[in-house]
């Protein structure tokens, strides 16, 4: 099931994780560091300062605006963190949704439903 599409910053193997929306600096400061390795961060704006303290620890990033030339994309690339920019979501993604990102060279990146499993407590 395709949940959304966007532009991948670099070609990468598919990654799976849990979608969590980050909307304010408090979300970044209060996140449990132990969960970051499984977290696919969803953000609405392509600045990079907002996620900067945790960006290198994330499983992946999805931004609903911007392009591969945006600052968020440039730094995600440097960390080697898979990143989709300008994502159009076909439906709401509540926090904790299992998702899979497919980022193939030369094609639109896809956000699909991931394997169902229990979200971390």
């Amino acid at each position, binding site marked *: 099931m395709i949940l959304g599409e966007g532009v991948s910053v670099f070609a990468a193997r598919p990654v799976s994780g849990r979608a969590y929306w980050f909307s304010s600096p408090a979300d970044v400061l209060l996140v449990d560091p132990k969960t970051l390795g499984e977290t696919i961060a969803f953000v609405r*704006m392509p*600045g990079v*300062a907002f996620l*900067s*303290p945790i960006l290198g620890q994330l499983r992946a990033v999805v931004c609903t605006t911007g392009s591969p030339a945006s600052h968020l994309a440039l730094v995600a690339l*440097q*960390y080697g963190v898979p990143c989709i920019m300008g994502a159009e979501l076909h439906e709401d993604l509540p926090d904790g949704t299992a998702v899979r990102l497919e980022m193939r060279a030369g094609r639109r990146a896809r956000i699909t439903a991931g394997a169902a499993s229990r979200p971390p407590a």
Partner: protein
Amino acid sequence: MHGLPHDLATEPSLQEWNAALEDLGRQYKAALQQRTVFESEMFPISAYVVMSHVEDYLQLPERLRTIERALDPYELFGRGLPVGSMRNFIGLMSTLLHYLSGREILIDLQEIAPSSDLRDHLDVLRFWRRGLHGLLGVRRLPEPSPSVLPLHRERVEQIIGELIPAQPEVAAVVRRLGATLTSYCFLESCDSRLGTCDTGPYPINEERYLALRELVIDHDGRYPWVDPIRSLLPHHAFVIAYELPTSVAMRVNVWGTAAFEPSDYHSQATALRVYAAHEDRLLPLTVAELQPLIRSLEAAQAQLYRNFAQMSRQDRLLCGVRMYAWKSKDWAATAGCLQGIDWELSPRARRLYDGRRPRPDPSRIFAEAVIGEGRPGSFRPLR
């Protein structure tokens, strides 16, 4: 830039300046359009961009005249290293681009006429041109190209001789350091890329070239928000050197950002080196020094982030305005006239987004005035 006399001794005519600005404006517009959106959950970027560009328009000419009276910009930008301080390519280019953008914004807001302040424009342009010649170390500018090569050949040879083969463990730690430094610089610079500049490609041979990334952190009090952080870091200016095969294309844009094709150039690097820049020296760091440096940066980043998070959005906006409007502080300090310049924000710029009155959407102002829909480039001719 197309259209300018190559010889520094010849002052360009207004017609020649306009030809050059048309070329610059096309490149600027094309680069801006690739970014599509300029906002952040942390900083109100569009608002501080509009305010700071207006501030530059209002204050920069007199500030640059003061600096030029103290030191010829050709000498100012020819001193020391041409990388690793704000006397670098992005500092010089962004100063001109932001000033000209301020003019476009104020014309669109109908606060100035297209014919206003020509003397100021020519003073800014003269300073910029002399600075660019000094930075590149030439009396004659090279033809326009997608390369920016301020580092003299002897420095390039020094770096080539000190490169370390990009074994996987070395490449991994350099990549992590580069990412952490870049991320820190974006935070310190309020989500702008003023602390990050790319230069190159410096040819090594027919098969390889050198790409340099400069990362400049405030070391002397330019940004008050860094005051509690500064001492956490052992160095404040860095240059990362990447040896890349010519199969990876490198193109540097008008403000010193490199684009690589393929984009994941890190994995293509055959040799690397990290330097700390001090005055006119590049100090090569050992691989053993890099991991502690990453930890120091992460600690500094976490503290700076908490400090920004505790500020109101309006205070973060003012940090952004100051960050952009204070680009020339480093130049004034080098010229010995830092105290002779009033660095306060002008009331006219402050009023734009002081939260007390409704103002037009800053994203729309920037898009209409600077990206200039319907115009070939960002800048209208001077007159």
